[in-house]
């Protein structure tokens, strides 16, 4: 069953065609990687999939609903309910502890639950760092808090933008292991990356060039 369908998507900024005639489907439980050089349209595609932008043309079908014409307010609601975002620069709120950063996502979604947030941190191996502020955590730990925050509301789709881009090799390994476990548990994951090693972990890799899909590679792992 398809969770996400991009049907003939284009995004045009003035005279710049950031994305052109993209057709792509993401199955439920699939791990998909999007790769491409700078300016290939990766970020634009991530913004459209993540409901942070709308296509100029075409349709975005998420969980059976066309969301390409939805208002900004409605897209905020869809993002809150169905998508878990993981950022390259972690984007944790500096004055809240790791636990509170996870609870913020619960707060905007429904009801904060400290116990559940703590369990999410334990799941990414940060149970003992829950009361620490982001400034007291390493980059790898901050990314794991970001992952715990993305998972806390059980999203249909986990969308990660260069999740290992700011991490050393050891922490990259930890984060990829978490992704593997999430995939094993049935989560649908879309990872935007420029790192072939990260992309290889996915089931399929979509390679973008000049705003178009250049090729789709089925990974063997």
């Amino acid at each position, binding site marked *: 069953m398809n969770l996400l369908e991009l049907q003939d998507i284009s995004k045009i900024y003035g005279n710049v065609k950031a994305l052109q005639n993209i057709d792509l489907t993401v199955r439920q439980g699939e791990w998909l990687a999007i790769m491409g050089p700078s300016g290939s349209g990766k970020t634009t595609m991530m913004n459209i999939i993540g409901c942070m932008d709308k296509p100029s043309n075409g349709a975005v079908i998420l969980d059976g609903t066309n969301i390409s014409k939805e208002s900004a307010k409605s897209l905020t609601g869809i993002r809150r309910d169905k998508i878990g975002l993981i950022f390259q620069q972690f984007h944790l709120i*500096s004055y809240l502890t790791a636990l509170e950063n996870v609870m913020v*996502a619960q707060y*905007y979604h429904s009801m904060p639950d400290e116990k559940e947030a703590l369990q999410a941190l334990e799941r990414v191996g940060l149970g003992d760092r829950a009361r620490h502020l982001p400034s007291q955590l390493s980059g790898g730990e901050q990314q794991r808090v970001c992952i715990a925050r993305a998972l806390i509301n059980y999203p249909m789709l986990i969308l990660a933008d260069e999740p290992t881009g700011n991490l050393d090799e050891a922490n990259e390994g930890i984060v990829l292991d978490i992704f593997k476990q999430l995939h094993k548990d049935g989560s649908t994951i879309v990872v935007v990356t420029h790192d072939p090693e990260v992309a290889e972990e996915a089931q399929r890799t979509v390679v973008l060039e000049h705003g178009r899909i250049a090729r789709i590679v089925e990974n063997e792992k």
Partner: protein
Amino acid sequence: MKRQTMYFRMITSSLIRRRSRMLVALLAVAIGATILSGLVTIYYDIPRQMGEEFRSYGANLIFVPGGGDSALNADEVKKATGFIPAEDIVGIAPYRYETVKINEQPFMAAGTDLNEVKKTSPYWFVSGQWPAGSGSVLIGQEVVERIRLSPGDTFTLSGTDIGGKSFSHDFTVSGIVQTGGTEEAFIFMPLSDLEGLMGNSGVLDVVECSISATQQVLNDIAGQVGENVDDVTPRLVKRVTQSEGTVLTKLQALVYLVTVVVLLLTMICVATTMMAVVAERRREIGLKKALGAANKSIIKEFLGEGLLLGGLGGLLGVALGFAFAQTVSINVFARSISFQPLLIPATLIVSVAITGLACLLPVRSATDVDPAIVLRGE
């Protein structure tokens, strides 16, 4: 955990854990609230401070005989003074004037309550002592120049009482009074002494009242006395009451103007600080939007922070503002100031309103931020 609990945790964490940033904002609010509450305290205390100051210039209301009478009746005077609020009375000095002789030269003797005169006419300069009791008098400088008396000297006062009978009595000069006015031609003695010499009592020529009140209140008192007491005519001492009223009005207008200007400057200062605080958190706003926060929710959080900041700054401002007003009052008026409890809620409301408003405007524009742009760091 309840949503409200998380909400308070978020806004208090933002204030406590972002100390250095928030201290700047808190300082801006507190300084504004301090100056505002201080100036308002001074504004409302000026009439009291200056009123007391003006009382050193003498009586501001006098009672004279009315209805064709040549003298005031003591009972009528008592009725008239009953219209003056007791807490506003600085002093009430009754006067009875009679012609007497010293060494066959005519002089004017004034019988009065000398303790009250000290209050109604604090500007009198007395060489020697004020009379301690019966048999002692104060004599004016002009009298001294005519009969060469000094403090401690005894002299004989003679005259004719109301029955046409002659009297003669020895008095001791306790002090010499200098005022620069007509008082220097008088001999001041206790009213009971003069009444004893004249052979009757309960008759007065004028009553001088020194009242700590605004011109409006004085007008009201005069109006009530005029309407209700037939044989007493109240008169405002216009040179005192009018100049007092003019100075007070101008001084209050000045402080009012300064207060309004300071309020505007405070609003601009607080608004600018809050705008800077919000502007540097655009990325955080973008993140919250990316996490699914509705604009309403973000505005509520920033407003909560602003209101908390305004409340704290306002409380600090009330305390520091009173200290500021007290310092100004002691240095300018040499008197302490009274605390106005109503200023606590007033300052809090103004601080909270200004901070809230100053937060609301930048936050509203910040919620237009595209989360994708902010999160990319552009």
